[in-house]
């Protein structure tokens, strides 16, 4: 009898896309849904070691940790090194709300010269350099689901979706990547 539970990543080792846009599952990361008023932003920024962005559609990244502006008092924090974000939040006395969503979300990276076109096949956001430059982030829709999109590089995007939606998002992005190469 098995004496331990094995954690299976939702997308396994799948990979997809085309020569112009590779679609791959992102490595596991810790994530935090953070809500806080204007008076707590300074203290929280110090604790997390990056400046929480306060302008729409912006993000801040330091050493594999990203803070994405989602709303006027709402952020999504992603730490690719797996740091204990909840532990950091617990040490902050300023009024805020932090929820661990590490396993609620699945990250998918889309990279390559056609990455933008692959995402735009199902996403209404304007992804041109002027409207969505490197470092821009937004909550939006992809096909029938809600996603959080972060542009990590000129040809690199990170798509965050809910765990149970990840096969749908992965399939749609792979289809988009193939269509973008036509």
């Amino acid at each position, binding site marked *: 009898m098995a004496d331990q539970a094995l954690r299976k990543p939702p997308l396994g080792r799948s990979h997809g896309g085309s020569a112009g846009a590779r679609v791959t599952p992102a490595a596991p990361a810790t994530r935090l849904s953070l809500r806080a008023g204007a008076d707590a932003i300074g203290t929280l920024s110090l604790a997390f070691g990056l400046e929480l962005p306060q302008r*729409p*559609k912006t993000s801040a990244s330091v050493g594999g940790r990203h803070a994405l502006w*989602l*709303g*006027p008092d*709402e952020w999504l924090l992603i730490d690719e090194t797996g740091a204990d974000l909840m532990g950091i939040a617990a040490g902050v006395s300023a009024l805020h709300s932090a929820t661990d969503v590490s396993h609620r979300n699945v990250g998918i990276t889309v990279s390559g010269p056609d990455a933008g076109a692959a995402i735009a096949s199902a996403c*209404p*956001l304007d992804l041109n350099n002027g*409207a969505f430059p490197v470092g821009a982030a*937004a*909550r*939006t*829709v992809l096909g029938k689901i*809600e996603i959080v999109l972060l542009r990590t590089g000129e040809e690199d995007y990170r798509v965050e979706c809910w765990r149970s939606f990840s096969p749908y998002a992965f399939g749609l992005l792979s289809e988009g990547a193939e269509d973008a190469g036509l």
Partner: protein
Amino acid sequence: MLLIYCPYCEEERSELEFRHGGDAHIARPTNIADVTDEAFEEYFFLRDNPKGLIFERWRHIHGCGRFFNAARDTVSDKFYLTYKAGEPKPVIPGVSPATEKTVETYEATEGTAK
């Protein structure tokens, strides 16, 4: 694609990201236990359904998540402007509010139907 300006995101975003939230500027009675049944019905159930200019609540649910208010034309579906929740009802130059005459009431359209 219909674009709606979100006053919190400060840009136009696709209608796919938004959800309608009913009439705006509906004032809740200060003491709801004191109002008569008729006044409660008026507050809770009855809406004008104007033909033309309407002030509505909208929510950028798949974006910043915020509720805001919008002035929209119910015939052309044109958004005149949007503004943050809590701000007073704006005056829109060149657009007159819907009146009894512009509204197709049941009495006017079907009242004499046999």
